[in-house]
Structure formats: structure tokens, C-alpha cells
């Protein structure tokens, strides 16, 4: 059994080992090892397009995860215990948002927004004085909006499970004690659902950071890290891509382990964890 687990981990990490190995390749070609060098790390870090793509990815992921967490939490609270037609429609929409493949979402968003902007932009141009009209286009905003949609559905689903398991008596008790609804929310509901919100935020961030296919269609001229990687692969890969991959992987590994340690220490401090 242990041998089997080892084999599966081998399968999971073999490609990653290859990526890391070739990131230290001195040669230009990604598939012929020509000696050890760290030059590609320097090249990647000094490449303004890589850094900007990274920045775009991080900022889009952060913004969309934030929007999704806030609006998703609000919606989940409103939907809690609700029945009837609104609830049925909301459930159907969430279900569709999760189920429709990203590629269809990307294409649908592209044709809808391109058409819509095609209608709106001439109106804007007529309203404003010569040349000063703001023009809508595909880019940062559309990318955040598209990612936030899927993430919002995720957040609502996670919180729904959490809210269902929550003890309503607490909220009612708080109301009975004449606490205003906002205070009840802040002091009772929020602490209970906060881990869910955090999980939703992290999941949303990861989804957005890693998404290629939706971004491929709706990003306009913006380049996210996956889009940059995709076009580099077509251009003939240099080990620069391997260096980027290895760095992102290393950073996430460090973050994950750090989070784990902090959680463990927190638990120990709270006296809940015997180990």
C-alpha cells in the first residue's frame, strides 16, 4: 500500500522534477540539457512582461476573489432559509454557473460583451465631447468580472453548507436580547461563517490565478501569467518558463507550509490541539 502511494506521488512529481531540472539548464532549448546555470531565473525576473503578467494575475485574482467573497457572502446570507421562487431561481443559476464549462463561459462572455460594447461605445462617444468619451473594451475589468462570477458561485455553495449546519438558536437568542441585526451579524454570524469565507476566498484566488481558458477569451490585450506561458510555449520554450513555474511552485509551497504552521500554532495556543 505504501509502495502504491509512493508510486502515485512519483507520477505526480515526475513532471515537476523535469520542470525544475530544466529550469537550471544553461542551454536555450528546453529539451537538451547543456550544463547547470541559474541564468533563466535572472532573465525571468528581469523580463518586464513576465513580471507584469504576474502582477496582472495576482491583481485580477485578488480583486475577483474579494468581490466574490463579499457579494457571495451577502447572497448566501439572504438565501439562508429562504424558500419559494427566488430560491429556486438562485439555485438554478448557481448550478448552471458551476456546471457550464469554462470554455463556453469564455466564449459566451466574449460575444456578449463585444456586441454590447459595440452598442454602448457609439452612445458614449455621442454624449461626451470630441475624443474624450470613455470607451469600453475587453481587459482587466471584464476579466475580473468573469472570474468573479464562477468564484461567487463557489463562495455561495461553500457558505450554504456552513450556514445550514449553523445553530439558528444562537441568532434567535441574540435577537431576543434586542441586539440590532447588524450587531448579531458581527458578533454571532460572522465568526461562525468566517472560516467558510476564508476558504471561499482562497479557492477563488487559486481558481482565478490558474485559469487560462476564460482569460484566453475575455482578457483582451491583458496578459495573465497562464496566457504568457501559453504564448511562450508556442514561441518555442526556453527554460525561462521552467524557472517561472518553479518559482511559483516554490512560493506556493512555502505559503502552504507557513499557513499550516500558523494554524497549528494557533490551535495549540487555543489549547484545542493536544499534539
Amino acid at each position, binding site marked *: 500500500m505504501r509502495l502504491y502511494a509512493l508510486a502515485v506521488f512519483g507520477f505526480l512529481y515526475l513532471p515537476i522534477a523535469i520542470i525544475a531540472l530544466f529550469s537550471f539548464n544553461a542551454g536555450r*532549448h528546453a529539451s537538451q540539457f547543456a550544463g547547470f546555470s541559474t541564468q533563466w531565473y535572472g532573465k525571468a525576473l528581469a523580463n518586464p512582461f513576465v513580471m*507584469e503578467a504576474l*502582477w496582472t494575475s495576482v491583481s485580477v485574482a485578488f480583486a475577483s476573489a474579494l468581490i466574490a467573497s463579499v457579494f457571495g457572502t451577502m447572497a448566501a446570507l439572504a438565501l439562508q432559509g429562504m424558500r419559494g421562487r427566488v430560491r429556486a431561481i438562485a439555485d438554478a443559476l448557481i448550478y448552471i454557473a458551476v456546471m457550464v464549462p469554462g470554455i463556453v463561459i469564455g466564449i459566451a462572455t466574449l460575444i456578449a460583451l*463585444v456586441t454590447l460594447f459595440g452598442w454602448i461605445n457609439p452612445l458614449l462617444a455621442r454624449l461626451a465631447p470630441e475624443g474624450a468619451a470613455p470607451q469600453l473594451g475587453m*481587459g482587466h475589468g471584464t476579466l475580473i468580472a468573469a472570474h468573479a462570477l464562477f468564484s461567487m458561485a463557489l463562495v455561495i455553495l461553500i457558505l450554504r453548507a456552513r450556514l445550514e449546519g449553523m445553530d439558528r438558536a444562537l441568532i434567535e437568542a441574540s435577537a431576543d436580547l434586542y441586539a440590532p441585526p447588524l450587531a448579531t451579524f458581527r458578533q454571532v454570524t460572522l465568526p461562525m461563517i468566517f472560516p467558510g469565507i476564508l476558504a471561499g476566498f482562497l479557492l477563488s484566488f487559486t481558481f482565478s490565478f490558474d485559469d487560462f481558458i476564460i482569460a484566453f477569451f475575455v482578457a483582451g*490585450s*491583458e496578459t495573465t501569467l497562464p496566457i504568457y506561458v501559453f504564448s511562450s510555449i508556442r*514561441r518555442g520554450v526556453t527554460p525561462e518558463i521552467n524557472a517561472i513555474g518553479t518559482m511559483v511552485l516554490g512560493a506556493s509551497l512555502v505559503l502552504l507550509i507557513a499557513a499550516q504552521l500558523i494554524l497549528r500554532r494557533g490551535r495549540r495556543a487555543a489549547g484545542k490541539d493536544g499534539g
Partner: protein
Amino acid sequence: MKDKIDHISRRKFMEELRRYQKGSVTRRHFLGVTGLGTAAAVLGAAMPGLLPRRAFAQGSIGDRVVLATWPNYHDLANFDAFTAETGAAVQVNVFGSNEEMLAKLQAGGSGWDVFVPTNYAISTYVDQDLIEPLDLSLLPNYDAASFDPRFADPGTVGGKLYAVPKNWGTTGFAVNTSRSGGTTPATWKEFWDLTQTTFSGRTMVHDYQLTTIGNALKYFGFSFNSVDPAELAKAEELLLAAKPHLFAINSDYQPSMRSGDAWMTICWTGDGKQLNRDMPEIAYVLGREGGELWSDFYAVPKSAPHRAAAYALIDFLLRPEVNAREALFHGYPVPDARLSAILPAEVLADPILYPAADLLNALEFGAAVTLTDPNRAELMARFKSA
């Protein structure tokens, strides 16, 4: 980075940054106050995410230019030289077909400043109102008289110059002769027959309807540009029969040819030259039945976000000495007579670049109709999804 800005507090820095972004202070004030002026020149390019975009611009053309081009088509050292000279970094996006470029431009928001359309595609871009007539005052290195009109003329549509020539070339096939038993196939008939026999699983074709369908048409002796339904049906039959024997459908075939995974591929002049240069056993062949003769151009989309940089880049690449470096790297012939004085004699006599007259005369330029013909597009899609 951090210690360079230590002499003002982080909060002050952010305030100044925000004021700068809002436009209430000038760039010079911002750079001076934050001490970034000197740092920017050295380190600016390393961490642009932390800086406002304009802060690491050096010249008046901005800090970047986005180029959409074809695989293996530029000497990257030239881009480094351009960046060193102007301060604008070059982002290269690679495409495998004119259809793909057209689709991206039609959908809007491509973000490209310069792209490289092929002769037969230019009139469609003009019809679709996607490219602008070039402002020749911004291209002092463009000398119309030195360009071969046969390759330069498609850049002019309705009397206006929309595109300047980059390279010309042919579409033949590359074959690894160590795998073909010493004989080199010489016709498209042999290409497709070998694919289905001894080269089964080892041949690549372009992910590009013009050349893949065109050279299947050549098997039957039809025109490379045919849109005749009966002729296209024959070509489709051949393509579908060959498909199970293909290694891949991909316009970027150099990696697979170099690694030995693929033995034969539809191939453009320069890729043939690059492969032959490094691996002499790979031969570049023009099918005796004919095939494609083409010329590529530089054009500027109407939507170009960095127009000044776009012109600067084209002008830079048109400089004869830069263009010569490009040609030495990518192995495509240049239709600029000024280069004849610069390029080494063996390049100018290279039969891969400059094929014999009888082979050259059999070739056809691509026709504009093939780009928009729905039947050819759908045939290609059926072939790929079969």
C-alpha cells in the same frame, strides 16, 4: 529595490505614487522625491509591478511594443538591441495561421501594435477596416524603390500603402533523409504517399488551411488556391486518409523535427534553412507540382495601443543592417535590394532561399478568397476534428 527608497517612508512613497498616478505631480517630481529616478534606470525593468507603468519609460515612444508574428521568425537579439536603444521592450506573440490573426483582430482588444500578415490577407484586413494606412514619414528606413515589386505590391490596396514587406519565401516540405533510405522525395505526390506508408506516424502538416489544403490539392494537380467544391472534396478525401498517419497538425514543427519525433513536415523556407543549418540530413524540398510563393509584411492595426512604438519597431527592423541580422538568423530571403550588398555571397546563392527558376515558376501566390472562403475553413475544421 527596498533600500533605494528607504530615505522616504513607505507611506510617503505610496502617497506620492497615488498623486503621480492621478496626474497631480509630474513624473520628474515623482521620481525625484522618491529617489527612483536613478534606481529606475537600473532596476525599473526588473519590478514594473511596483512602479507605475510610465516610470520606466525612457524615450518618448513608451516602454513597450507588442508584436504578433510567426514561429522562429526573428533574431531575439535584435529585440534586445531595440529595447536598449529606445527603452521599449518587445512582447512577441506567435501565431500559426493568418486565420488566427484575423480572428483575434476581429474579436477586438488584441493589444497588438505590429503584426505580420501575408500578402493575400492584406486586402481583407483593409476591407474589414482593421489596419491603417502607414505614415511613411515615420518610416525613414523604408525605401520603396529598393523593394522587389513582385513581393511589395500586395501591401498597397486602393492606392494606399498599408503594409511594408518583411520577407518572402516558399512553402515546401522538410524531410529527414536519414529516414528515407537516402532518396529525397521531390513531389507533393511522394509527400502524401510516404505519409501513408513508410513515414506513417512521422509526418506533420500545418495547422493552417492555406498550406495544408493547398498542398493536398497539389497531389491531384489542382491549383493551390482552388475553392472549387469538387476539387476540395478530393483534397478532403486525401487529408482524411492521411490523418491517422500524421504525427501532428501543428505550425510549429521545428521542435519535433529536431528531436527526431517527426521525420517530414510541410515547411516554410526559413524553418527549412534553420533545420538544415543545424541538421544537414534534413533537406528542404519544393514539390515539383508547385505550391505557395508568399511575401509577409509589417502592418499596424487600427487598434494599436502604442502607435509610436509600433512605427519605431518597424523602422528599426527595416534598417538594412538589422534586417540582415534577422535574415542570417531566420533564413528567409528579404525583398530589399539594399541587403544584397550586406549579406554574404553564400546566403545569396543558397538554393533553399533562392530556388531554381523552374521550381519557382511553378509556385502560386495565395489568393485572397482562400482566407474568407467558408468551405475551405470548414474543410480544415472537419479534417482536424475527424
